């Protein structure tokens, strides 16, 4: 039992990212409203960002910006264990940007759909299409 709890705590980030991802995925599949799906999509994307950022965390390390970065002692020795892994951050910056871009496009599409059908509910739109 304690073993289980310690596993849960030790990888809490990973469990939460899975939860969030599944929430987002469920919303994208099961929600009927197009904008709700877009919200779900964003949650889905941020879940992955959470996963990546969790990879980078390093116990006892500080943020990946070098201290004493400039000035006379610019070239003093830097130890890798002192700094959090920067690579996932870099990747996730890109992923966030992609998320925003996708969001913009998705919303633009939603507006166009609304202009055509005057509703955002998928089943109502499909009913309108079927009527035609």
């Amino acid at each position, binding site marked *: 039992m304690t073993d289980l709890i310690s596993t849960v705590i030790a990888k809490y980030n990973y469990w939460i990212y899975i939860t969030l*991802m599944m929430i987002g*995925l469920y919303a*994208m599949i099961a929600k009927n409203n*197009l904008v709700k*799906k877009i919200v779900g*999509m964003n949650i*889905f*994307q941020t879940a*992955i960002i959470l*996963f*990546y950022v969790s*990879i980078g965390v390093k116990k006892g390390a500080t943020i990946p910006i070098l201290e004493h970065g400039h000035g006379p002692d610019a070239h003093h020795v830097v130890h890798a264990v002192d700094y959090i892994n920067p*690579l*996932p951050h870099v*990747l996730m910056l*890109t*992923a966030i940007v*992609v998320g925003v*871009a*996708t969001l913009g*496009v*998705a919303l633009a*599409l*939603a507006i*166009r*759909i609304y202009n*055509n*059908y005057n509703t955002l509910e998928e089943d109502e*739109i499909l009913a309108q*299409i079927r009527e035609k």
Partner: protein
Amino acid sequence: MNEQYPALLVVVPLLSALVVSIAGWVNKRLCFPVAVAALGMAAWSAVGLLLRVLDEGVIVYKLGGWSPPMGIAYYIDYLNGLVLPVVSIVALLNLIANKKGIEQQFPDKIGPFYTLYLLMVTGLLGIVVTGDAFNLYVLLEIAALTGYGLLAMGEERAPLATLNYLYMGTIGACFYLLGVGYLYIVTGSLNMVDIARLLPPLYQSNTVLAAFIICMVGVWLKMAFFPLHAWLPNAYTYANSAASSLIAPLVTKVMVYVMIRLMLTIFTTEFVFTTLALSDAVVWLAVIAIVMGAVLALAERNLKKMLTYIVVAEVGYMVGGAWLGNRDGMTGAILHIVNDALMTLCVFMVVGNIVYKVKGYAFEDLKGLFRKMPFTMGALVVGAMSIIGVPPTCGFFSKWYLIVGAISSGHYCFMAALIFSSLVSVVLFFRVFEICFYEPFSNHHGHDNHPGGMDEAPVSMVVPLLVVAVILILVGLYTGDIVNHVIQFAIPEAMV
């Protein structure tokens, strides 16, 4: 400059997209020549790269001058050396062919259209050429985003279909990203070759297994492999013809390329076929994909939608072939990437011409087209023959390899599915030909009583189409060379 081809390949379309974007606001007439020049340059680089690969073997290009595990590198080997020229040439031909159509459909938005078009090609070329797993994701998103934009501008239903595509595409890309993350967490690397080097001790790990499955599911979503195909038909059908004839040939094929790249380079055949016991299941899925694609295509009374279901079936061909687990199947899959890109281009360009002239693509709109647009329909016949798999068009030969692979691995169901799909394609296309050929009925033969004479699409649309048709046959005739000199080396020795 020879050394810089890998960069030029991607950068030239990108820079020209920006130039075109600005030109769209300054002088619209500049857009087309710039775009054509850029794609021509890209095609030139692609062919140059292929030749260099044939000469020297694998080319590594270090972006930013950083050596691979640190920085991003391009790896051009036989596999993408083959796919690159196809992508760039398909894009170039389609652009030339659709100049008139674009001007007709988007008189005010020519600049944005060409911009998106070029960015899309940039993305696709980048996906093919890159050697970095994460870079691939970014390029994937470029191709996807621009694709959404291009596809959504069509009929009334296009935005909804595209939004569904967007949801699916995002899930797919995110799954891929997650898979890469899993690989990163166990290896610490993002470079494909590097990951492959680090992976073998980890083959038994749950994480690697999950990474593989997640990546595959993501890529399958993007390529519309059977149970995940639902977005494709509507998205492609209701789009404008210039976009659909770019995206239908290339996107699914490039995604198949990504799948093969994952299987061959990152995870290696040893893991995919020996450690995992999934290949039977996937081949069965492919069988279902092919059969369902064919059957759903039969139910359509609409040329473009029918073609989209054929695309779904063709994806089944390639996935199944790649998963057969032997050399012939893999050869067939790789060859089919090339062939299917070309033949899908051919038939979708035909649809483009028809839409340009007839303003419709439902079966009723096709009546009497053989008389009205003989060259277009001639190209359709060639394309159809290729899809059916009639020698000497190229479609036959990839099907050949696929079936031989199926036989030698004992997947007779896959062979049966291929044959079935060919038969259904015959029915599909001859149904179309019948309509184009017979109707309107000439009730008493003897005199030409068809209304109107020839009313062919403009020369600028027909000539690229005919070029594609000829390429279909030429590629078929040179299959032997392609296989012997390129594909053979693209498949690792370990694969028998």
